[in-house]
């Protein structure tokens, strides 16, 4: 596993001339799991898409090992940086094996068959995601959690050192969410893959992230380990939400409990009044 440095310098980006991110500097920690959090429309996906080269920055630059993406051949870049989009498209009647095999595209030459190296990478990726037994099934017939594991396996077959995932748990129930994050953690520990993902569940983010990036209105509000940055104040600033900070009884990581007014117990009535004033 190679160590790569990936950073955004004074990045300005958005869609169709609408600026969403207006000049931020981010350095992705190598061989760690980073999670980007923030409210809807804060620019998390935009940032991810810039790093994954799906959109080009308006200004500023993204540097991989100190050089811009346009300096590199796109197939070579595809061997270093991979992405699992939010809702990738499943081709009609494709089997698990064939879909995972598509991750080998950057390594293939025209007309050549899958090499033994390709086949090993595919087997290993399916094994890691626990989908080896599903290899001959049609992807469209799998459950949501299985399908997501197949997609991650495809991204793993690409054997990139850096992997971006755009909300990999969003459409999954809680047991699958935990399962996916466990698998990603395992991948990071075993292979040292740098993982960067957008997550909505703050407590799962807190548990699995080595580094959190908190964004609001296209700006980076805070960056650091969950222990260092995740607290009531950050939640108020980023999500405009009153919370109580607790400790995750399982992992010991910061645990956020939102307040809201409807369920306040008598002993927290005073807190409730404060909230109604804020709201």
């Amino acid at each position, binding site marked *: 596993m190679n160590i790569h440095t990936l950073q955004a310098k004074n990045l300005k980006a958005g869609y169709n001339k609408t600026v969403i991110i207006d000049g931020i500097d981010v350095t992705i920690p190598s061989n760690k799991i980073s999670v980007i959090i923030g409210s809807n429309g804060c620019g998390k996906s935009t940032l991810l898409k810039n790093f*994954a080269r799906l959109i080009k920055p308006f200004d500023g630059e993204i540097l991989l090992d100190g050089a811009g993406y346009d300096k590199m051949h796109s197939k070579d870049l595809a061997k270093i940086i991979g992405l699992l989009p939010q809702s990738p498209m499943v081709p009609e*009647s494709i089997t698990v094996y064939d879909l995972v095999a598509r*991750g080998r*595209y*950057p390594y293939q030459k*025209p007309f050549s068959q899958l090499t033994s190296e390709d086949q090993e990478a595919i087997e290993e990726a399916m094994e890691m995601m626990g989908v080896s037994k599903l290899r001959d099934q049609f992807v469209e017939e799998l459950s949501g959690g299985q399908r997501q594991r197949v997609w991650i396996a495809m991204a793993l077959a690409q054997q990139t050192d850096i992997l971006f995932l755009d909300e990999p748990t969003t459409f999954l129930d809680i047991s699958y969410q935990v399962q996916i994050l466990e698998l990603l953690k395992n991948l990071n520990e075993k292979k040292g893959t740098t993982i960067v993902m957008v997550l909505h569940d703050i407590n799962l983010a807190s548990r699995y992230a080595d580094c959190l990036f908190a964004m609001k209105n296209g700006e980076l509000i805070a960056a650091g380990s969950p222990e260092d940055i995740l607290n009531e104040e950050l939640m108020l600033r980023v999500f405009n939400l009153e919370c109580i900070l607790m400790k995750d009884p399982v992992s010991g990581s910061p645990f956020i409990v939102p307040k809201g007014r409807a369920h306040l117990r008598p002993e927290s009535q005073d807190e409730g009044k404060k909230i109604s004033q804020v709201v």
Partner: protein
Amino acid sequence: MRTRKKKEISVLIILFIGVLILGFFMLSLGESNYDLATVVKVLMGQEIKGASFAVMSLRLPKLIIGILAGIACGVAGNTFQVIMKNPLASPDVMGVTSSAGAMAVFAILILGLEGVAVSAFAIAGGVLVAVIIFSFARGNGFSINKAILMGIGIQAMMQALITFILQQANAYDLSKAMHWLSGSLNSAKLSGAGGFFITVLILTCFIQYRTKELKVLSLGEELPVTLGVNIDRERIVLLMASVIMVSVATAYVGPLASVSFMAGHITRRIIKTGGVYSLQAGLMGAIIVLSSELIGQNAFAIRFPVGVITGIIGAPYLIYLLLSIRNKRG
């Protein structure tokens, strides 16, 4: 893995045999029917009174042009559908075929051109419509549905334009009119078909050579980029190759309805390994054209040009397709 590869190859072989069998019937059936031995003898160069002329001068050109047109439509339609991930997105549904036809009939009947110049006009027509559709459908990120709807509109317009040109040119010859309204093999000639053959050969090989890129392009808008495909360039090149192929075919046989729409879709439904299958789709196109021609020429008291039959088959297939899409969502 191996069984899937086997399936793709065995379907290819079966389709090839299908083309051979239909090819024999194309040469055998007609005003007078000849048996296999006679057909083979004539093909070997033996001079048989009556048969030689009918087979070599009338039926063989139809057969060869029909195969070429079928392959062109099948490969091009399949490429369109794979790239746009929608079975409705084929050159005939989207007006590329009709537009090539309109330009070809304009070149022939109004300008009095023939040969390569007609193909050039047809290509210009096809490319022009493709460029219009895709540049308008871009706007706020590329919308395939927008492109398809716009194509359907253009298709109707171009069909009207063909009728208009036929009237302006006083084309009272019914067979000529039918040729440009729905496509037919009746005026197929081998002289001058060399360019057609070379175009289909080169572009089919090129598209087959890009199979891996096509497979990646079918993964949506984002993954192809991160897998290292230059998505814009690859799409444009492959779509243009398809447009040129279908336009040249249209210059020779007129706007064949539904062939490019059905061939790829049927092929993918049969093989079902999530692949691209350009060659199989091409042979499927040839099978659709040849069997429609055989039905049109032999099944009824009146002879119908091939395009009428493909159109008649295409309509229920479209309905079936729409129903099956709805069932999947529901």
